[in-house]
């Protein structure tokens, strides 16, 4: 790791004021240190956000049943353990509980989780100058692509590294961004960008912006949600596929479905056809199976990752049924 300047920001504004070329912010620092150790980046200065108070709150916007508001420095462990989150946003709690290791969940923040860089092994190795680093090649397209994207994978085949965002997008989360020009609120789904636009980035966070809040709208009455991360190992492992399902139900009938696939695309991927199949239908085995089959229609698997298709089908079907079964 190359040496750098270190500052402890006293406020978000003070941190934002310092942002610029060669300056990086540090929240939990987990993903950042990983990249610095590999030599993928060598910032001139690190701006530490951890000393700023009040950024790690979990609260409800009104009473006990308002929007869920997460401070950007809230750790995944805190979210996982929070009784209110477990009760009202169970799929989010599940996603946090299955991220990384217990140690890392104690360190990693929700804000950092959303802007972490991909786990693609070509990207993570300084030996490969891939498209994401400004190079001309996506090595995964013809190379070792077992764990890569099965849709939207023509330019750069990463999968988005945040399995927590799979649940957040399914809940319709928004992020508040603050920069030198002021604040803006962006639906998380639009926050992430596909490589076709710019393979060098995974989101639309501006160079002088920080995530200052993550907000999940209060679930409608009759909402059922579930999350499943399918891994090879149950101890710390990256997902082969993960899925979050949020269903607005009227009895067994689905009024609205939100189905997001993780580890399938360079961004959390909305399974629109699956959602359409469930809309207005009673959620049963047949509906779940039809929706699951639709989830991977049109997928373009690479040479070594077609095995993901049956996995996605299986976990989408199971998770739809779990969400329907767990409706409040």
């Amino acid at each position, binding site marked *: 790791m190359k040496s750098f300047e270190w500052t402890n920001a006293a406020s978000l504004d003070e941190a934002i004021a310092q942002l610029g070329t060669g300056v990086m912010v540090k929240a939990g620092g987990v993903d950042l240190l990983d990249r610095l150790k590999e030599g993928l980046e060598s910032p001139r200065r690190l701006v530490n956000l951890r000393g700023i108070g009040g950024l790690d709150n979990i609260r409800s916007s009104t009473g006990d049943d308002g929007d869920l508001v997460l401070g950007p420095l809230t750790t995944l462990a805190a979210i996982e353990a929070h009784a209110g989150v477990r009760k009202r946003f169970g799929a989010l709690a599940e996603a946090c509980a299955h991220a990384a290791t217990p140690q890392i969940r104690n360190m990693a923040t929700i804000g950092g989780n959303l802007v972490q860089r991909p786990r693609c092994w070509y990207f993570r190795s300084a030996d490969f100058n891939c498209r994401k680093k400004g190079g001309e090649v996506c*090595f995964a397209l013809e190379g*070792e692509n077992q764990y890569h994207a099965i849709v939207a994978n023509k330019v750069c085949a990463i999968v988005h590294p945040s399995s927590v965002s799979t649940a957040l997008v399914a809940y319709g989360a928004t992020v508040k961004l603050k920069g030198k020009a002021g604040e803006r609120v962006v639906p998380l789904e639009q926050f992430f960008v596909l490589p076709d636009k710019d393979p060098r980035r995974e989101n639309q966070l501006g160079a002088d912006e920080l995530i200052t809040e993550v907000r999940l709208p209060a679930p409608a009455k009759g909402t059922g949600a579930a999350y499943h991360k399918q891994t090879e190992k149950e101890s710390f492992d990256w997902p082969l596929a993960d899925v979050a399902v949020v269903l607005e139900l009227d009895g067994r009938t689905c009024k609205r479905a939100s189905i997001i696939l993780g580890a399938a695309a360079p961004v959390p991927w909305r399974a629109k056809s699956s959602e359409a199949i469930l809309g207005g239908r009673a959620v049963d085995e047949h509906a779940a199976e039809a929706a699951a089959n639709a989830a991977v229609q049109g997928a373009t698997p690479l040479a070594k990752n077609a095995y993901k298709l049956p996995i996605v089908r299986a976990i989408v079907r199971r998770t739809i049924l779990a969400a329907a079964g767990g409706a409040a």
Partner: protein
Amino acid sequence: MSEDDETRGITRRSFLTGTGITVAAAGILKTTEALAESVKGGAAVGPGAVPVSLKVNGSVHQLSLEPSTTLADALRFSIGLTGTKVVCDRGSCSACTVHLDGTPVCSCMTLAVDVGARAVTTIEGLARGDKLTPIQEQFIANDAMQCGFCTPGMVMSCAALLARNNKPSLDEVKTAVSGNLCRCGTYPKVFAAAMAASGQKLPRGSDVVTHAAELHFESKAERPADEPPPWPVNSKLKIVGKSHPRLDGRLKVTGKARYTADVRLPGMLFARRVVSPHPHARVKSIDLSAAERLPGVKAVMIVGRGEGAKLRNPPKVADKFPLVLYAGQAVAAVAATSQSIADEAARLVKVEYERLPFVVELDDARRDGAPLVYPGAVDMGGSAGGGGAQKGLAQKGNVRGPSKRDKGDVDAGLKAAELSVDGEFKTQVQTHSALETHGVVADWREDGLTVYASSQGTTSVRDEFATVFDLPKSKVRIITEFMGGGFGAKFGAGSFGILAAQLSKKAGAPVRLMLDRKEEHLCVGNRPSTVQTVKIGAKKDGSLTGIVVTSWGNSGIATGGGVGWMGTSLYACDNTRSEQYDVFTHTGAAAAFRAPGQPQGAFALEQLMDELAEKIGMDPLALRDKLDAGPGVPGPGGNDEATRAARKAERQIGAERFGWSKRRPAGADGGPKKRGIGMAQSMWGRFVDLDASCEVRLHRDGSIEIMSSVQDIGTGTRTALAMVVAEELGVRVEDVAVKIGDTQYPAGPSSGGSKTLLGITAPARVAAWRIKEQLYKAVGEQARSMPLKKAAAKMTTEHLSAQASRSPDYGGDPHGGYGGVQFAEVVVDVETGVVKVERMVAVHDCGRVLNPLAVQSQINGGILHGISYALYEERHMDRATGRMVNANLDQYKIAGAKETPEIEVVLIDQYIGRNATDIHGIGEPANIPTAAAIANAVYNAIGVRVRELPMNPPALLAALGKVNRVKEAKR
């Protein structure tokens, strides 16, 4: 640390040896407040060392650190608290776990400058003085450790759990350590320790050890007159055969056990190698000047020795620089006053390469016209074991061999068969991934070379250093106090070790060269991937008429990619043929790995034996009973009478405990999650290392010590030697001081081939017996009836000393084999392709059981290695660039706590009376059958054979026909 340090008044020397100014407890409060202030706001500091205060284990340390210094490095190198281990250095393994205000975090992913006022607790800070915490005590009592390198992290994870939950469920325990990797497979005992520390027991299984049978095959051969008569059976002994916790357990659970990575000598420099990113290249030029100019750099050198096998006809004119034969091969090295300076200097070395064609996968390398690893025929001592390393074998392209083993007339045997089974099986590359990477601290001085080495063979390492540097053995000393796992890859000096010694000589200072995690995957060995075809001919009654094994192994730039001798020796057959080929690729040298070749061989053979049983209509156990009823297979590692009797008992006991009678037809379960059971057998040779010596001393005050250069790879060697000596001398285990891991003591055996205890316990007993005889001679026969201490007091010299070396087995060759039977229960999710092993029963023999607790740990470890191999581990090579893409510990997947099944270990005492103790090793036999047993269970679950490893979702879903895998040349 940068060049600015000197000007800031902090000498590099003080950085190295720890600058910590420890503030007395009284001053803590005030300083802590100041710390809290310093976290808030403020101007930029660094680059260059900045003042950092850390409150560690109740003391405040004022340090001067680069802002880029991790908490782990600050603790280890600045404060000197080396109990915190760095393994993956990326947050994937939790070995570096410390508590920040009670919360467990990875200290390798925490910057020291970011700790602020939070209180740091390390493994050294858990105990209150001499009083261990309950979790530490239970780690010792349950033997929740082997090599011990993961132990501090494991203890810290458990301690944090117990602090917030005083009655955790087993599942909560597993979750708490789900980020902690252990390569020795101690998970079941970690669970037991955590449950016991909270006053609970495991539900069932994992803490039971049973001696189910005693088999006697006492040798009628004469023993030498200067050796004692055989011990009686264990039930008549006081210490041997009863569980005893490790003598060094306390050092391991307090972080005080000192590993090579922890060694710090005055003036010690840190080294880093410059490695080639290209798999095959000619080095055109190397420019060291920028590295040499970097302040703090003390020595820079170009690597002069090539790696790999030797050409039989070497070219007359050698290249200026050794040819690069794999990505990761070192071309230069630097030594500097800190690791960060060394790393930076390594980056500054400019190397110009001429890239050459390469091939990295087994199937690709076998093809006509494949790029050649060697331009002509080569020879090399087998680095991977398992056959294929004889000299002078034929070589065509990258394919060398075959190494042959022939018996009878196989063609006639197969012709005489009434039915046959055959198949092609593939296994993957598995890297050793010991938690402590390979490394040394080399200290070259006028009067000799001292090397602290993470080694599993102090003597073999010494011999290689002596040979390479043309030094007399008397001037080379190897010290391995503790070592963090080896598994077959740590017998030699290593090219890195040679480099460290050269740098030390050049710089005139001790040099520490520990490989990083990526290098560990690339450069120091692996279990070769293999393709093998096996055909078995049989009669309808199950008797075998012929077995043919043909294999190709990816041995990288080395030799020894064979599949062992399971196919030709596990079951008696008059006609067998084994032809094993090495295939060279531009990848790191294969190396011996826990029963080299045998797990690969078992994976094929034991699946086919089950297929044969099914074809004949016999139960798999009944078929094996029938085969073992016939004549055995003589020779080393063979299936002799004692072995077959043990195997038969093991099948019976295992079947009963496991519930084999409930086995259903293959694929009987409806629904997506299908349950199945299977079994497989193990066999290993009784390899006796005669180069196994020790010295026992008895002092006049009655104290006793035993000395040998033998090392502890995780076996529990110290405890084993103390138990044997204590038994013979009639004293307590704790009364015996054990001094090992140092070549200044009599030469002990290497820890390979499961030879450690089979080699060293017999001379340990003999030496202890000889001490007694000397004592009685010295002080009179009446002393025979006295307590040892009282008799010793009558000695006229300060101490008596007796040496002993391992004598050949009474009755001489042939040595038979020994082994075990393992049963597995799995659940296969046929929709996701995920296999989960839920339960294992392992019934093993290892001669006379010395310490059931330790044997159980070894068997757990063999099984965990086997599960990890069967289901998860795989080296991924990028074929376009020839580089390994998952050289880490998150994408190279090793079984963790939640992959650990319930394991029941049953031991059989076998007294064969062929040496002074009858004690055997168990490391290897415990690993051989696991993947095969799981494969047979998978078949029983789903009714489809999976003939490749790992049996992961891509392989399972392909076997189930749920996905058309693009035809690819894998491995």
